[in-house]
């Protein structure tokens, strides 16, 4: 372990101080200590290669083919990508995914932030509340979707029959039949399921803010709102960035809830990008085209994450 560390330490100055040329020479003439370092990371590298690089390479390869589920495949160059440009339903799905991502991310933060503030400081029953709010996170997304699919059922579920029995509605309302109630039901389900996780991330960020700062600001006469804006938020940049990226990436890849609860309905208005990829690959059996769509989505996600990291990086001079 110590040898590996020192190998790293010996390597670092060379990276930053020397020119590219000397760096290359250094790599070529790597001593046994460097090889030992390489040996230490080998298992991780092997895992990344086998489970990420190779599948990714295969996806790229498939995306350049007309690759049906059955039968022979043929190389068609970039034709799949040209077809995507004309695939209106994919762009519609992408637009809906964007809309969903914005709405659900705002909703998750709107719920998770107050919860994090609430459970951050020790008070009676904090442990209970933390567990309580976090519980839905440990339910799998598919199981949660099945549960809500039943809760939302108009004939045998909970919400509609309950509202009807309480006299709130004149007849049982089918929540999943039209876009607005169906969409907001999904949002409610996802917030219920995910907010606890975002809450825990935000809580760790809150706890890492030194209490002295808050105290000093209080003594200087700053109100709670000013303290939140001038101290809490800026010091939580990194935490918020992490929570945001996780939430956005998760939402852009949304599939389970729309597949299980809504089947993309009502009237195909809730087809997400991943749902469309799934349909192309396993309903229309066009694996090559599905692979090309996946590559496009991957690039979009990558760009989104880079933008977020840039926007939320520490301002110059801080830290």
């Amino acid at each position, binding site marked *: 372990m110590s040898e590996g560390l020192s190998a790293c330490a010996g390597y670092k100055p060379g990276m930053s101080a020397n020119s590219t040329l000397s760096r290359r020479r250094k790599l070529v003439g790597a001593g046994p200590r460097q090889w030992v370092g390489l040996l230490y990371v080998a298992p991780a590298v092997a895992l990344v290669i086998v489970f990420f690089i190779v599948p990714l390479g295969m996806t790229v390869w498939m995306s350049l083919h007309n690759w*049906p*589920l*059955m*039968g*022979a495949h043929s190389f068609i160059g970039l034709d799949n990508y040209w077809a995507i440009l004309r695939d209106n339903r994919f762009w519609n799905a992408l637009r809906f995914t964007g809309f969903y991502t914005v709405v659900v991310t705002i909703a998750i933060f709107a719920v998770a932030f107050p919860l994090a503030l609430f459970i951050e400081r020790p008070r009676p029953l904090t442990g209970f509340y933390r567990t309580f709010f976090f519980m839905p996170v440990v339910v799998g997304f598919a199981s949660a979707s099945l549960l809500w699919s039943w809760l939302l*059922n*108009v*004939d*045998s579920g909970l919400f*509609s029959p309950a509202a009807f029995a309480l006299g709130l509605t004149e*007849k*049982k*309302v*089918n929540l*999943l*039949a039209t876009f607005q109630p169906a969409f907001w039901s999904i949002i409610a389900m996802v917030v219920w399921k995910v907010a606890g996780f975002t809450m825990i991330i935000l809580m760790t960020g809150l706890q890492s803010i030194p209490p002295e700062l808050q105290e000093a600001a209080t003594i200087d006469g700053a109100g709670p709102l000013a303290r939140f804006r001038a101290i809490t938020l800026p010091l939580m940049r990194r935490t918020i960035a992490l929570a945001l990226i996780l939430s956005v990436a998760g939402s852009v890849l949304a599939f389970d809830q729309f597949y299980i609860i809504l*089947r*993309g*309905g*009502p*009237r*195909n208005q809730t*087809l997400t990008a991943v*749902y469309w990829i799934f*349909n192309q690959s*396993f*309903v*229309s*059996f066009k694996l090559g085209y599905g692979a090309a769509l996946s590559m496009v989505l991957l690039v979009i996600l990558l760009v989104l994450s880079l933008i977020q990291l840039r926007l939320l990086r520490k301002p110059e001079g801080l830290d």
Partner: protein
Amino acid sequence: MRTFIAGLAFAASIVSAALPAGAAETANIWVRADGSNFMPRIVDAFNKGHENQIKLDIIPNAEIIPKYGAAAAGGTAPDALSLDLIYTPAFSAAGQLEDITDWAKSLPYFESLSPAHVKTGSYKGRIYGLPFSADSSVLIWNKKLFKQAGLDPEKGPTNWAEIEAAAEKVNALGGDIKGFYFSGNCGGCNIFTFTPLIWASGGDILTEDGSKATLDSPQLRGAIDLYRSMIKKDLVPQGAQTDTGSNFFAAFATGNIGITPSGAFAIGALNTQYPDIDYGVTFLPGKDGGWSSFAGGDNFIVTKGTTKIAVVKEFLDFAYSLEGQTILAKYGSLPVRGDIAKEALKDLDPRYQIAAEAMAKGRTPYTVVFNDLINSANGPWTQMVNEVFFGDDVDGSIANAQETMQSIIDSAQQ
């Protein structure tokens, strides 16, 4: 000591079972979960009486296609597959199946095999699939509710007006009881039970060769009006609008539904799981009488290049025997051999006879893009049935579906 001897005998029996005499072979066959009732029975019966053996795997309905595709690509496909017949054109077109034309035509009873199956099993004049199991669509009604509503419990509706009138009377019983049920957001359910209404009235949704979509017809509009009218009169439970098929059978099985279009499979399922429900079976009628049915079920296909083709043929021969057809009929599939159907069904519930008759005249749309057009939860057919039953713009929905279907058909032919 006795247990030791018993153990020894047991071990010997295992050894003898594992090493049948001669050069017996074992072929691997897959079936979708819908066949999990009859398939193990017929395989068991075959294995008991034959040296060659069949190893059966049951695969969930939604997974059998991707799984087979992946296995075929990896060279681990089963020797044969009992496949939802609507997929046979697509599988044949992909060049994945063994051409069994000569063998099929040498069967003495080839002419009496279910014509709808043989039609979907053929591609460009060659035969790649032969009928295995069958399911026809029929109309079922609850006799108890009919009686309570003052209707003749022994007489089912014979045209659209009678369906609506009877549903209205049953619905008037009130409470949880509803007149009519259908799965309003399920493409597969509605191709099975809604298109026969159109066929029986003289219309169709695709041309014979599957090259043109023909949705904009007075027969389709008439059938839509029937459903819309029943929905408007509140004869259909609210859940129908979003039912993707999970309640297709279950709704009627609650005993609270007067009439529902269903399939032959419901006869077996009701008899075994809901013996208290007294129901009648009749044909799906046309607007002014006549009737039609969807011919569903499985085609038996052979993976290209399998070395076990002799075993597979031996098994199919057995399935086509009277013994095989009787086992199928007893456990939930209609017979697929018209010439011995009556005999295979003679000891069973007489309501099967109606379903078998429906099967003999049943129809199946022929297209290599059935999944895209019809079954996909997001395809044009599913979207259209949901919109025209429950939406406000029937004309727009039909026009939209017609255009989308035609473009899917056209792009598949390129």
